[in-house]
């Protein structure tokens, strides 16, 4: 003898199927509602995001921006072998230093032996981050031993940081000698 039930034996299965279909339909509806208008305008992203990105405040600038206020450095840096090196690599981002063309905070400056670590970030022979043609590398302390000086010397005792060959060239000239592979 069967007990009497209020619902048909398959009713829950039908209900679940309906729920899934409705949920799917709601999903499609929600997609239409929430999808940004410019989605897919150029590719798989919100087209208006380009506008947003354009309005993001720049943190880094070019060396030209620094030159506007730092004339003395400009004269040295622009003429030297480091002319292609960005000021911000060695100091810090423009935005932390200048806001609306006004000085707002000190720019970090490396001092003493920090300078050595800074130079070796790019010029370390062992790391050889780039081919020798693009960046000359030295090994320490051999570089100093070759120059016959105390190995405790710091790089900026011989190399002007903003134009590393400025003093070196001057010294060669004073002695009437030609530097090997002189680039001028």
């Amino acid at each position: 003898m069967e007990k009497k039930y209020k619902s048909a034996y398959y009713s829950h299965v039908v209900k679940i199927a309906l729920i899934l279909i409705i949920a799917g339909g709601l999903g499609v509806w929600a997609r239409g509602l929430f999808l940004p208008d410019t989605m897919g305008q150029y590719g798989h992203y919100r087209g208006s995001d380009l506008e947003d990105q354009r309005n993001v405040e720049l943190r880094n600038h070019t060396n030209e921006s620094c030159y506007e206020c730092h004339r003395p450095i400009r004269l040295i840096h622009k003429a030297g072998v480091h002319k292609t090196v960005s000021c911000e690599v060695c100091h810090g981002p423009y935005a932390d230093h200048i806001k609306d063309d006004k000085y707002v905070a000190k720019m970090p400056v490396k001092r003493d032996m920090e300078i050595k670590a800074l130079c070796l970030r790019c010029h370390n022979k062992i790391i050889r981050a780039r081919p020798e043609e693009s960046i000359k590398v030295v090994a320490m302390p051999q570089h100093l031993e070759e120059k016959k000086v105390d190995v405790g010397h710091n790089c900026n005792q011989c190399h002007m940081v903003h134009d590393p060959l400025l003093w070196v060239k001057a010294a060669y000239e004073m002695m009437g000698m030609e530097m090997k592979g002189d680039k001028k």
Partner: protein
Amino acid sequence: MSVAAHGETIAAVSNYIFPNDFHVHWSLMIVLYPYITGLVAGAFIVSSLYHVFHIKSLKPVARFSLLFALAFLICATWPLLNHLGHPERAMSMMLTPNPTSAMAGFGYIYSAYFIVLLLEIIFIFRPVSVALGQKATGGLKTLYSVLAIGSDNVSAKALKLDHKIIGFLAAIGIPMACFLHGYVGFIFGGIKANPLWATPLMPLIFLLSACVSGIAGIIVAYILLRKLSGKDIDVDCVQTLIKFLWGFFILDFTFEMLELFSHFYMANHHWHTLEALYSGPLYNTFWVAQVGIFSVIPFVFLMFMSLIRFKDGLLLFFAPVISVMILIQVLLMRWNVVVGGQLMSKSERGATTFHPMWLEKEGILPAIIIMVAPVVILWLIGKVLPFWMDDKGAEAA
């Protein structure tokens, strides 16, 4: 020039990594994410062993493992939401599906699996929900009626239909569980820039370790919960679980070692970096902890426990202890893969170190909270649906 002659330059180089590699971006949260999805997939496999492959002795844990899987699945997204920030944007992934992005696939893969798991639970517990609903009052009554999908029909005909559907859901659930977790492994295995991750074995290893952790999790939870509530434990069930644990662990451990061995044997140009990584920053967490302590010891014990019939008391002592060790092994494996892969420079020069902090956004405390949450959720689920067959109301099934 001898190496010693370089002196200072070498000192500047050791631990040198390029600045963009300095930070370990995928930290504890990304360790937990595959760990939790792994527990889910593994627990689901346990239930399928009963529901699909008819391993009768697993009956006592077959339903519990589904609820266990659900509790963890609910929390599987939490580490990701915390890691990425902006949880309010999570739905964008569903609104703008991107077929070419493996990571973006998560939304649909996860949701599909969630639906299947939830449906299976609803169908399996429907007679229970109906029975409990008749006794319940107020809000609980409404909840049971929702769980029973508003139907009170538990006639033989209805149950037969349910049974068919359960079999079907469990059957498609297996490939889906495998896919969900294999996919998590693929996320890592597909990153060709990282020699520690980029191997087609990665999905397989993730999947096997998922099964292992899920089974171990069920063993620990089963024995612990039964002991705490003073109910007796089905030794036969534990013995079977241990056998499966051993079986999956053989495969898991072998493939983990094979993966390393093939790197070593092929010795391609990445090997010197990997070697430096395994013998350097990962030495303790990989060789000592993951392999030495938490793989070899459980491996031997599991072998004996599977081959020799231990006395009940002894089995019920060792089973949870070894299972906890296995759970730690899998956590370590996730750590060594996820964090380990980021400790080396992508330039393959030098390695960095990583120490998790307690109070960071993605620190140890948030990690603990995220791991405790599924346990709390499981406890809440237990208030509504009975874990065990001998619980009140469950006999209706």
